[in-house]
C-alpha cells in the first residue's frame, strides 16, 4: 500500500453499510459489560471501562433511528483524541484502502459525510464531528 493511503473500516448497521476512517478507531472489541448512565438519552447503552477510562457506548442504529443494534454485535471504540465514545454496530465487514473507492458524492443524511462507491456497493462514511455535535446537543433532552 502506498504512503498516504487512508484505510476505511467498513461495518454494518441494520443491513446498511457504513465506514469510518481507520485512524479514528482505537479498537474493535466484543460488547463489554456496561453500566447505566443517569439521565442519558436512550440511545446510550451505558458506560464501559476501557483500559481504565470511562467510555460511553452508543447504540448507533438507535441513534440513527434505523432500529436497534443486533446482538452480539461489535463495539468500535473511537480514538480518545476524538471522544470518549464507542459505537455499537451489528458487525465489522472489512478494512479497505481508499484506493478501492471508485467515486464519491456528498452525503444527503445528517450524520453522513460522503457516500462512497466501492466495488462491493455504496458505503456511507460517518461524519464523526457532526455525530458528536448532535450527541452533545441532544444530551440533556428528554428522549
Amino acid at each position: 500500500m502506498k504512503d498516504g493511503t487512508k484505510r476505511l473500516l467498513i461495518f454494518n448497521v441494520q443491513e446498511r453499510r457504513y465506514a469510518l476512517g481507520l485512524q479514528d478507531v482505537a479498537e474493535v472489541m466484543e460488547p463489554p459489560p456496561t453500566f447505566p448512565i443517569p439521565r442519558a438519552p436512550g440511545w446510550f447503552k451505558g458506560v464501559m471501562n476501557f483500559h481504565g477510562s470511562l467510555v460511553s457506548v452508543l447504540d448507533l442504529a438507535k441513534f440513527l433511528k434505523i432500529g436497534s443494534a443486533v446482538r452480539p454485535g461489535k463495539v468500535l471504540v473511537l480514538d480518545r483524541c476524538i471522544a470518549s465514545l464507542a459505537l455499537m454496530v451489528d458487525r465489522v465487514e472489512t478494512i479497505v484502502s481508499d484506493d478501492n473507492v471508485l467515486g464519491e458524492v456528498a452525503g444527503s443524511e445528517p450524520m453522513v459525510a460522503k457516500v462512497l462507491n466501492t466495488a462491493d456497493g455504496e458505503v456511507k462514511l460517518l461524519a464523526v464531528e457532526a455525530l458528536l455535535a448532535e450527541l452533545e446537543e441532544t444530551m440533556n433532552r428528554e428522549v
Partner: protein
Amino acid sequence: MDMSQYRDLFISESREHLRSLSDLIVALEKDACDKDTINSLFRTAHSIKGMAASMGYGAIADLAHKMEDLMDRVRKGTLVYDTGAADLLLEGTDFLEVMINDVECEAAGECDISGLVERIAGYSSKEALATVSRPGKAEATGPEKISLLYQAESPHAMREGETQQTVRVRTSVLDSLINTTGELITNKHRLMNIGREAGSERLDGAIGELTRLLRELHNEVMSVRMMPFATITDRFPRLIRDLAKKSGKEVVFEIAGSEIELDRGIIEGLSDPLIHILRNAVDHGLEPAPERLAVGKAPTGKIRLTTCREKDRVIIVIEDDGRGMDPATLIAHATAKGLIKPEEGWMMSPQDAFMLTCIPGFSTAGEVTDVSGRGVGMDAVRSAVQSLGGSLAIESEVGKGSRIILSLPLTIAIINVLLAAAATLTIAVPVTNILRTVELRRSVISSQGKQKVFHMGEEAVPLLSLNRIFGLPLTRLTGDVIPVFVTEMKGRKVGLVVDRFLGQQEVFIKPLGRPLAKLKGLAGGAILGDGESVFILDMANLV
C-alpha cells in the same frame, strides 16, 4: 545556536517575573520610598531584559530596558514614583505579557511598543511630588487616590544563601502522577474485594501494607501538586487597583495567608470565582467616598482576602466594609422576580436570604442595582466552588459590610464519596457536599402542600427522590426507615432520598470526556474495585 529548547524555560521564568512585577509596582504605590521594593522592581525588569536579549527577543528586551531605566531614575532619586509612573509600568507589564504570549504561540510580534517606550523614557511628574512626598497625608487626599496594602510575602523571593534544591517539572507530569496514583487506589480496592473472597490472611497482610504505602505515595504526590495561593492572588492588588480607579472609589486591599498551599486543580478553578467576588465587592459592595462620609465612615473602603487552613480544608474569606445587604430587601427582590414564593420568603433566615443572590436569575445583566449587584455571576461562582467540592456562605450586616466565605478541600483528584443505590444505579456523592445522612422514620415526614418535608431543628427540609430526578422507577421502600442525605442545592438545604446507602470509599475522579461531559448533574466518574463504573453527582447542577 538553536535556542528553541530554552524557549519554554524563558516563558515560564518570564511569567514568574511578570507576576512579581505587577505585585511590586502596586506595593510601591503604598510606600513610594521603600528602597527594597524599588530595588526589587529594578532587578526584576533587569532580569526580564537580560533573558529576552539572550534569547533574541529584541522588542521584549527594549521595553524591559526602558522600564528598568525608569526604575533606575526612581532609585537615584531623580524621579518620584507616583501613580503616573505606576500606570506606565503596569501598562508595560501588560505589553510584556502579550509579547510573551506571542512567543509561546510562535505568533509574529504585532505589538507596537514605540509609543509606550517613548512615554516611559520621557516620563517626569512634578505634580506628583506634592502627593507622594507627603506619604503621611496621602491616604486622605482626592478621589483619584488609591491606596493598596499588600501584606503577603512574595513567594518568589529566595532567601540569601539558600541553595536551590528544586527542579522544574512539567504540569502534565504532575497530572500523570496523580492519575497513576488514582489507578493504584482503584486496583487496591479490587485486591481488597478478591481478598475478601479468598479469605487469605497472607493476602490481607500484603493488602494492608499496600494500603499504607499507597497512602504515603498519595500524600507525597499531593504535596508536589500543591501550589501557594499567591499564584493567583498576586494579581489581585492590580485588579483591585484597576477596578477602584474605574469606579472612582478609594480602596485599601489587604491579603493574608497567600502562602497557604492548595492542589493546582483547585487553584486553577478558583481564579475566576474570586475575581467575580472581588469585582462585586468593589463595584457594588463598597460605597463611593461621599456616601461613606455621609454615614460617618472613612472615605476609603476596605476589602480583605484572608486564607487559612482548618484541618483538611482551606477557608477563604473575602470581606468588605461596604453597605452590606438587607435580608428583607433581598427576599422582596427574589419574590418580585418570581424566584421564590411569598410564603417561602416569610420563613427565610437571614443566611438563606443572602444565598438568594446565588440563585440563577437573581441578577441579570442590564438591570444591576445595589440590591441585585451583589449577585452578579454569583450562581456561576457557587457552581464553580461546589464543583471543586467546596461550599459558599454569605454573612452581611446593613451598613457594616459583607463576608463571603469559601470552604474548599485541599485536593480534588482523589476524594471520599458516599456510594448509594438508586434503582439500577450506583451513584457517588462527594462527602464534602453532604451536610448529614439520616435514616428517617416515616412518622417524622410531613407535607407542606404537595411537598414532603422533614425537620432539621426548626428548619423544614424538602425531600426529593433521586430516582425521580434521574427518571428511574421509584422503589417501594419497605423498611422502617428511609435513607436520606442532606445537601445544598441552589443555596437551599434539600434531603435526597435514595434506595440504600452502600458505604463510603475513596475514589479517583475520571473525566467524562466527549460527549458525556455535557450531561448536566454529573461531575465525573469513577471505577470501583469490582470494576463497576459509577457517576459522581454535581450537586450544583443536578436540578
